[in-house]
């Protein structure tokens, strides 16, 4: 069965610092990969996605992610964090064949200090 691991439950950064959120997946073939963000009390909003091709993908709000097949990873990055980036971040995978059901990681809570 496919699985998604986000090893960091919480991450604290200072405003203006760089950010990297980790995501590893376990699946037989390369799935579709996603990062979502959830502000408090809200639903999930898509930040970016990877289907194929260029392994560095750009998303909204200045985020990017890099797919590394050899490490089964899809880490999210931002060069300079803003206070408004404080939120919960979820990595998700969808099988490229078959059920197309999204499986989510447990989430990483980002805290931004002024």
């Amino acid at each position, binding site marked *: 069965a496919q699985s998604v691991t986000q090893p960091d439950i919480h991450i604290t950064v200072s405003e203006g610092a760089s950010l990297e959120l980790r995501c590893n997946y376990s699946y037989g073939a390369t799935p579709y990969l996603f990062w979502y963000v959830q502000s408090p009390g809200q639903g999930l909003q898509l930040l970016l996605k990877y289907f194929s091709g260029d392994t560095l993908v750009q998303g909204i709000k200045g985020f990017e992610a890099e797919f590394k097949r050899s490490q089964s990873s899809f880490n999210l990055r931002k060069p300079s964090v803003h206070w408004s980036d404080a939120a919960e971040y979820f990595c998700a995978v969808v099988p490229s064949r078959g059920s197309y*059901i999204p499986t989510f990681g447990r989430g990483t809570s980002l805290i931004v200090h002024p």
Partner: protein
Amino acid sequence: DVKVTQSSRYLVKRTGEKVFLECVQDMDHENMFWYRQDPGLGLRLIYFSYDVKMKEKGDIPEGYSVSREKKERFSLILESASTNQTSMYLCASSYQGGTEAFFGQGTRLTVV
């Protein structure tokens, strides 16, 4: 603008009540999903549907049922609410080809 709408943002129900959570999407999506979100556990799939009147169990279906009579609407039913079903419930939809899921704003259910 695409939209997934959940009927309630907050609900408070009593133990043993039958509870209906409604979700409507306006994107003509084939797939619809109900997830439950709890702190530290992420999103866990309760049920999903890939077509009208079709439903499949997810990872945690016990205590829940679903109904999809029309393509745009997917209802989650708690047959007899219990306190351990207090949670945030998220509805999502997607096209059949596995593109990204679009989420509603969530329903925070408290069972007392």
